[in-house]
């Protein structure tokens, strides 16, 4: 692209202290990918995210957690027990020159350590403190304990996901805290935009429940506007009080996702699909009599679907994921394979954009594959994955070289279990 890239990322002047565990790591990861100097402050025994499976070669070493790889890469690591008096003092010294501090403790936990927002602001009034909690800092549920599953249920997402004859279902990977910690990066940058004008920092109070609530599509408004309770429909989706669309369909070798509904975009796609079926002699009169572009999104009733689904299913079951996808691309039909992880690694579009990257990792005996950046920008690089820091990898660099501690004191603090 046009500008010559520099190595400096967009946020290169800024330093972030990241005190989060697995519930908040993604916030700092996004800022690190955008170029900030993010220091992961780990307890001396290591961040709890280092214990999360899966592990490289199923060997559960602290540096082998792929959760850690995914959300701690591009950060530096120091060890520090902020509950100790020396630890607290060191954190205060670091906070004096930092631009952001991110934490995911329970509400009140930082205050109990004497490191609440007011205390930190007294040291550095320009500091932006980001707190990531399940329900926010205050309110009736503020002190509720929440695992991922609890959060996805309280966020309204589970009730509408899954099969109607079974329990509500979570998304297959823990997303409750990822929604909140991704949103925290946005909140941090909004606070920064204000700081640019006012010089003042502030406290950003993130609620993961609200973050998941923002992923509920149109279901939230469905109740006050139409009085509808949206229920889970398995392969179908309820789009309104009496309207549905079919989403997931079995095919010859797996599943495809094909949004069978009206509306400006979907309607064209479905019309094209019916034409394909007709060309293969598999569309009945009823299907061919419908014009899905004039139906509008979310106007297909259950009765209509009962007539539409059987012939469409027959057509799909005779064809493989890749045959259907290739045919769909050719005909501008919105049909996609339900990708397995292996399908994703072999995806030609991702390959053309060189999304997956190999790193030479002698410490892990081989080349290892990591993900590319979450976005691209023409003038400043956005980082992709990398090898995450080992525990306390940057202790000397930061405590001795940057903070000016004597090497003997660094060693002494390690011996005392402070770092």
């Amino acid at each position: 692209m046009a500008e010559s890239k520099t190595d400096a990322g967009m946020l290169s002047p800024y330093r972030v202290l990241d005190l989060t565990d697995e519930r908040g790591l993604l916030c700092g990861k996004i800022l690190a990918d955008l170029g900030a100097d993010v220091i992961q402050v780990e307890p001396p025994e290591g961040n709890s995210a280092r214990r999360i499976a899966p592990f490289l070669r199923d060997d559960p070493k602290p540096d082998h957690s792929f959760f850690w790889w995914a959300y701690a890469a591009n950060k530096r690591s120091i060890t520090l027990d902020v509950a100790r008096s020396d630890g607290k003092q060191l954190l205060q010294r670091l906070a004096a020159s930092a631009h952001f501090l991110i934490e995911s403790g329970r509400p009140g936990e930082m205050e109990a350590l004497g490191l609440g927002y007011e205390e930190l602001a007294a040291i550095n009034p320009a500091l932006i403190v980001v707190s990531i909690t399940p329900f926010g800092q205050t309110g009736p549920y503020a002190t509720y304990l929440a695992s991922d599953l609890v959060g996805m249920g309280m966020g309204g997402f589970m009730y509408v996901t899954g099969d109607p004859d079974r329990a509500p279902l979570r998304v297959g990977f823990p997303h409750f805290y990822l929604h909140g910690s991704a949103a925290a990066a946005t909140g941090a940058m909004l606070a920064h935009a204000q700081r640019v004008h006012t010089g003042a920092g502030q406290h950003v109070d993130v609620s993961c429940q609200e973050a998941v609530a923002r992923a509920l599509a149109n279901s939230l408004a469905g109740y006050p506007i139409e009085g509808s309770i949206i229920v889970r429909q398995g392969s179908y989706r309820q789009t309104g009080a009496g309207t549905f669309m079919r989403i997931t369909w079995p095919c010859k070798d797996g599943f495809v996702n094909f949004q069978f509904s009206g509306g400006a975009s979907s309607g064209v796609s479905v019309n094209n699909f019916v034409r394909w079926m007709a060309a293969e002699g598999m569309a009945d009169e009823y299907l061919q009599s419908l014009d899905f572009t004039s139906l509008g999104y979310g106007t297909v009733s259950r009765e209509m679907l009962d007539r539409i689904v059987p012939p469409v299913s027959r057509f799909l079951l005779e064809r493989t994921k890749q045959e259907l996808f290739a045919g769909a691309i050719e005909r501008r039909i919105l049909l996609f394979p339900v990708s397995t992880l292996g399908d994703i690694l072999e995806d030609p579009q991702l390959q053309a954009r060189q999304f997956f990257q190999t790193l030479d990792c002698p410490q892990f005996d081989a080349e290892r594959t990591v993900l590319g950046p979450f976005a691209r920008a023409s003038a400043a690089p956005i980082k992709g994955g990398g090898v995450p820091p080992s525990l306390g990898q940057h202790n000397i660099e930061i405590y001795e070289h940057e903070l000016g501690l004597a090497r003997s004191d660094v060693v002494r603090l390690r011996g005392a279990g402070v770092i």
Partner: protein
Amino acid sequence: MKPDDPTRPLGQLKVLDFCWVVAGPMTTSYLAEYGATVVRVESRRRPDVLRTSPPSRVKGKSLNGSGYYANYNANKYALGLNLSTPKAIDIVKRMVAWADVVSENFTPGTMERMGLGYEELRKVKPDIIMFSTSMLGRGGPRSKLPGFGAVLSSLSGMTGITGWPDRDPTNPYGAYTDFIIPRFAVATILSALDYRRRTGIGQHIDLSQLETSLHFIAPLLLDRANNGREGARTGNQHDAAAPHGAFPCQGEDRWVTITCMSDSHWIALRQVLGDPQWMLDERFHTLLGRKHNEDELEAKLADMTRAWDSEELVEALQAAQVPAGLVHTNKGMIEDPQLAYRGHIVYYEKAEIGRHPVQRSEFRLSRAPAARNWPTPFIGEHTRLVCRDILGMTDADIEPLLAEGVLEEPTAEPAASS
């Protein structure tokens, strides 16, 4: 139009917004909520599909009745502009000269075809920040594939890993990836603005919604790439915790999540349920024992929870420090006391839509109090205002353009959807 307000985070930011459907408009909704002047360009000739999406109280076709659309477009200005006319492209370029950010989520190549690609915009405004997001990113063999988030859930692997081990995969509700994108996107746009402030250099951001979404399952992809393990559907179970699931309560389709992440959670659960004999079974004393007998454990636990009122059970478990919660319906979310306490949902009145909820962002900034501005505009509602206040046009300039159909205003009769 509202004056610039430098006390708000984005009180001086100017955005020309071509986004439609969800991922794009939700991205710019954060900017509008925090003070940016966001001018959304739309035409009745190709209306945003969300404008005709449920829920709505309007019978028949209306471009102004959708509660779905309303959730992402409050606090924005609506400029009605028919982009198929050369005069409209000239107006866009005058708007680009005004803007800091131009945002769009068309299929790659669409802006270029209209003469509004990044290189063209730079000629008008050399330091413009252009935000482009598409399903699969720019460049590559499938760049121009159309589609939106409901299908992208599948392409990104989310659908394949969601479901019961003995059944077909299930799509996560809604256009799921659309709601993942904006948090990454806003952070990137604001970072680009900071970079421009320091260096004077604008840029073009290319966000592939597939690539961004993959960061939400990154550990599984690393496992597949480096260990060769394919993902599996595990229902609600957790590899290192048991019980971990949704359990039925009194009433129809009422559920409570219960997750014992440690021995202390298990013991507290047992006490809340009155120390039933089966829970004292030696096989359930350890995590490994509970994991190895999880199906039986879940069935027995469900037999007990069925006798409970869901709210009472959650209160009792939380009081005993067990992570547990209600499985909220959409009604439950609307009535949730925590969300109400936080003011997560604000209600607006507007003709056609009526009283409707709009969600606020999921964080509270201590120095940027909530500003409740205005509800979602009708299509073309601010055409005259934008032309006058931003472009300095007079009624004599505006009227002929309205008559020619270059500019559009709200109409009384129902608009034809194409």
